[in-house]
């Protein structure tokens, strides 16, 4: 990718005025993002097969669940919380992965990390009889880590190391392969929780506050690791030699950041199943708004990821009425074109 550096620099220079104008208003964007998140959360509680009015929402929030409307609201509350949390985790995980690998195509879905977590959980349930949600989380994180190491290993074989296209190809192929294996493991076991669908296509439909409680510590740890590594990711973005010259321990910084990303992706997959493309789309959009400084990019990615997944979940409930569309299906429909757009760009610039 060395030869591409001049064209990359030129593109950046052309985008610079726009970027500067946009990133100067970061606090404004942050406020707008929070507002949007609040609005989407309200909409997510109100909208669905049965649309609920404000009075009922207010009643349900105060703990009254006497009527059908308030019951619907109280059933949608954990779902809304989970969509926001999972979206934030996936957006953040994608942003870290793009920073760690300096690859614009990195995303826990595309790199096969989510499918790896899914396969691990499925194997754990079917062959080792794990049943508790805590065990799911550990297994998923283990699977996510193994898949990440595996894909990165394959993608960096050969000349030029882990180039964006090679890494994406290795990840996408691994993801397809894992998805096949998930089907093979789950299909004979009709008794598996959620069945085959939920382990091949992620959704937030079956959310409970108890389930969220089980993954929350892992997510919190992941968020913490992510925020600590923001500054390190900035150093890594300069290139390994330069980062080392600034006194950064490159390998260690990478390992911590990657651990955070894997923790977030694995814990999310343990409860939602594999949801793709959120981690791809969100950081790209945020980079336009905030610039490349990871101290801003990471929180923004979390915020935007939460908004995106909430919106996708609401959309999934609306377009297939009276049935529901799993949020993983919606994100694939929305994210596919973005993926193709990035692949299509003349030269894929390293981040």
């Amino acid at each position: 990718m060395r030869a591409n550096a001049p064209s990359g620099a030129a593109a950046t220079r052309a985008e610079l005025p726009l970027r500067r104008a946009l990133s100067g208003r970061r606090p404004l964007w942050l406020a707008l993002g929070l507002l949007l998140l609040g609005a989407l959360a309200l909409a997510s509680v109100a909208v669905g097969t049965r649309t609920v009015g404000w009075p009922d929402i207010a009643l349900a929030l105060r703990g009254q669940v006497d009527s059908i409307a308030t019951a619907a609201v109280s059933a949608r509350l954990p779902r809304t919380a989970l969509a926001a949390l999972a979206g934030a985790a996936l957006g953040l995980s994608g942003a870290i992965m793009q920073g760690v690998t300096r690859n614009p195509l990195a995303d826990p879905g595309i790199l096969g990390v989510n499918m790896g977590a899914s396969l691990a959980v499925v194997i754990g349930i079917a062959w080792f009889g794990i049943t508790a949600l805590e065990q799911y989380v550990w297994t998923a994180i283990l699977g996510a880590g193994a898949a990440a190491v595996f894909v990165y290993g394959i993608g960096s074989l050969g000349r030029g190391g882990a180039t964006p296209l090679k890494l994406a190809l290795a990840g996408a192929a691994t993801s397809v392969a894992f998805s096949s294996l998930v089907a093979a493991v789950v299909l004979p076991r009709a008794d598996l929780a959620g069945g085959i669908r939920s382990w091949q296509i992620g959704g937030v439909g079956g959310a409970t506050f108890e389930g969220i409680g089980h993954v929350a510590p892992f997510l919190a740890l992941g968020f913490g690791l992510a925020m600590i590594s923001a500054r390190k990711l900035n150093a890594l973005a300069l290139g390994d030699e330069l980062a080392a010259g600034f006194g950064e321990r490159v390998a260690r910084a990478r390992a911590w950041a990657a651990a955070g990303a894997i923790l977030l992706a694995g814990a999310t997959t343990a409860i939602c199943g594999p949801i793709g493309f959120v981690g791809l789309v969100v950081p790209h959009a945020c980079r336009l708004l905030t610039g490349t400084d990871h101290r801003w990019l990471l929180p923004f990615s979390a915020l935007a990821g939460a908004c995106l997944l909430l919106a996708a979940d609401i959309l999934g409930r609306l377009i297939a009425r009276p049935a529901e569309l799993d949020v993983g299906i919606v994100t694939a429909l929305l994210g596919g074109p973005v993926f193709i757009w990035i692949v299509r760009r003349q030269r894929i610039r390293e981040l």
Partner: protein
Amino acid sequence: MSQAPFPPITAPRIAALRRQRLRGWRRAVLGLAIAVAALVALTLMLGQSFTPPAEVWRVLSGQDAPGAAFVVGQLRLPRAALALLAGASFGMAGAAFQILLRNPLASPDIIGISSGASAAAVLGIVVLGLEGAALSLMAVLAGLGVAVLIYGLSFRGGIAGTRLILVGIGISAMLDSVIAYVLARAPSWDLQEAMRWLTGSVNGARLDQALPLAVTLILCGGLILSRARDLETLRLGEDTAAALGVRVGRARATVILAAVALIAVATAVTGPIAFVAFLSGPIAARMTGPRGSALLPAALVGALLVLVGDYAGQFLLPARYPVGVVTGALGAPYLILLIIRANRIGAT
């Protein structure tokens, strides 16, 4: 070095070498054909119970065979026929794509053409209530549309292999979502049906479904085979092939059209049986070696894969699987292996 290390290359020697290679190719094809025939016979005889060959023959030749008529004629025969025809279609079309794009990863089931045909078939059945020829036509058109789309999207002053494959993977993720969406809107989400359109299955086969498959296989398969020599020449690169007298554009368009039709018509019946198109070509090439065209052997290998996969999925494994899950589990490790090898060589 006063003497050449090899005997001088003369015309008779080249002819002898060529004959020898052709003989090897013929032997491989014959062996595969015998294996396919034997498997078809075996799947007609074996199932939950054993039916003696004489009984099977009585059913096939239309004589009265009270005990076996239903099991053999209604259950096993349609299944075997569909497995044979769909496998051959996928195998040949996959090999044609791989040869044409000179990349083993560029098979129609990885770059989304099968998913396109499958999405169209699901849409046609669930939303429009189509069946038969109209359904096949819709699948063919969708497959062609996806092929054109992928080509257009990955064209940037020449086709880069990796870009084409990644664009295809992106499209196929979207199309799989479309399939899931349509199935979610269907009156009842039926796991068997969902598995058929996402990974392929020959469950519930009927004999009348085999007819369009057979016709397409004969017409389009013949068309592709008639271009086999052009395809072999195209392996050398477009410019070389053009210099050697191949009409590159026309040959390519013919082969793509025929291969997409093969894939789409088969997919409209059985769903996109996972990885058969992707696996058949490389396995066939390994069996025949670098001699002769891999198309016919690939068709036979495809038939073999689906027949074996379906039989294993029904009777050999602890649970009953649709054939696509079995071939998917077979193909998945090979896909990863192929990527590892490609990266080692530096092909991507």
